[in-house]
């Protein structure tokens, strides 16, 4: 057998259309995960013993188990508790929770690198707790963790491919459908791979651009 470029070309339009599903789901997950991660970080900083203990267990759980299993739990186990989620909703929920936890861990590392004098100075100026978070700590934190955050976005984009396993019709599932009709699985999968390559290279380029902008803004 040889690689048929014509086959690849003919399936590409349908795959690109399906890739928009991945793009849309990934965008929703990024927003939810960044908000959730920031919320959890502020919550952890309040140092409420029980809450931090619970978050600690959740971090260990999410980091210690496969994303695929977490997706299965939202899809198969949640209905047993009366939560009947559509595949897309279950998938987005699982990805968002997973990523929010990883983002709080990224933020923990970022917080270590902010000079303590910043907080002390803000406090000496009698800024409120809220203002210290919003005006002093968080803006610097996001600037510092930007590269790692961009990396996390590419992980989210890749994670959306797993949703095909719970019947979300994304690039991969579309590719599998086309392949089972055309008997050319390899070319079709190469097409799906190219879609992800394009999206993630674009995400990385955008991240670099954003970093440069921020560096300029500071100078």
């Amino acid at each position, binding site marked *: *057998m040889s*690689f048929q470029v014509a086959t690849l070309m003919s399936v590409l339009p349908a795959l690109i259309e399906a890739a928009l599903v991945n793009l849309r789901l990934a965008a929703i997950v990024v927003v939810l995960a960044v908000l959730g991660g920031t919320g959890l*970080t502020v919550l*952890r*900083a309040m*140092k409420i*013993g029980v809450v*931090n*203990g619970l978050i600690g267990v959740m971090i*260990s*759980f999410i*980091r*210690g*188990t*496969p*994303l*695929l*299993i977490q997706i*299965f*739990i939202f899809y*198969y*186990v949640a209905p*047993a*508790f009366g939560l009947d989620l559509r595949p897309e909703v279950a998938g987005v929920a699982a990805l968002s929770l997973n990523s929010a936890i990883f983002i*709080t861990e990224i933020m*923990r590392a970022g*917080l*270590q690198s*902010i000079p*303590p*004098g*910043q*907080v*002390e100075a803000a*406090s000496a100026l009698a800024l409120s707790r809220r203002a*210290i*978070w919003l005006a002093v*700590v968080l803006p610097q934190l996001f600037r510092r963790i930007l590269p790692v955050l961009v990396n996390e976005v*590419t992980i989210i984009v*890749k*994670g*959306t*491919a*797993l949703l*095909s*396993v719970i019947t979300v019709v994304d690039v*991969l599932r579309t590719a599998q459908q086309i*392949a089972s009709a055309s008997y050319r*699985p*390899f070319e079709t*999968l*190469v097409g*799906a*791979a190219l879609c*992800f*390559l394009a999206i*993630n*290279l674009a995400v*990385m380029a955008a991240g670099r651009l954003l970093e440069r902008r921020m560096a300029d803004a500071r100078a």
Partner: protein
Amino acid sequence: MRFDIGILAQYWPILLQGAWLTVRICLTAFVVGYALGILVALLSLVPSRIVQALVAVYLAVLRAIPFIIILFLVYYGLPFAGVRFPAVVTGTVALSLFASAYYAEIGRAAIVALPRGQFESARVVGMSPLQAMRHIVFPQILRGLVPPSVNMTLTMVKESSVLSSITVAELTYQSLVVQGNTFAPFEAFAAVTLIYWAIAILVARAAALFEARTGVAERQDVERSALAASFLSLDRRPAR
């Protein structure tokens, strides 16, 4: 919602079989992937544009594409090239390739981070080449290598769950079998989750022990005022 422990009493042998296969696949992929990764890391240091471009493409492709697609590409690509392996072998090959890209980046970073002249300085103070490597160069490379490698290995163990989709009877696959037979997703996934969690904790503990034994562990305590710590530290008690 009740938890039927009887299901686990009945199905624990196949879950354990799955766990054992997961461990074996991951050990193989760790060894093969790490060897390949170090090779790619060394290639990336070769001062040739063509070699560097090839390495860059290898890393970009393997890191930008979801593992499930890499797996399917290998699964359908090998027969395409006229090679047929059992699914377990195909899956291990894909997992090794996937991991090699990340190990390569880790290896490259650790080598590049080594300050120049460490080896020469050690030689000048009278160490033999072997001593210089053993006491000066190697510990420093290891210090940069171990923590991210542990992280990546844990990531690899978790990604191995995706092999279930090409019918490799590893842990996740067995959980789906139990689920399919019993219609009890809660029990099946709870058991599997705990097994993965246990594997992850064991790997992390083993790595910590290794770091302590070899003395590459690096503890950094940042001194902060209580006030700054209340914002910048997420631990339950503020440092000092």
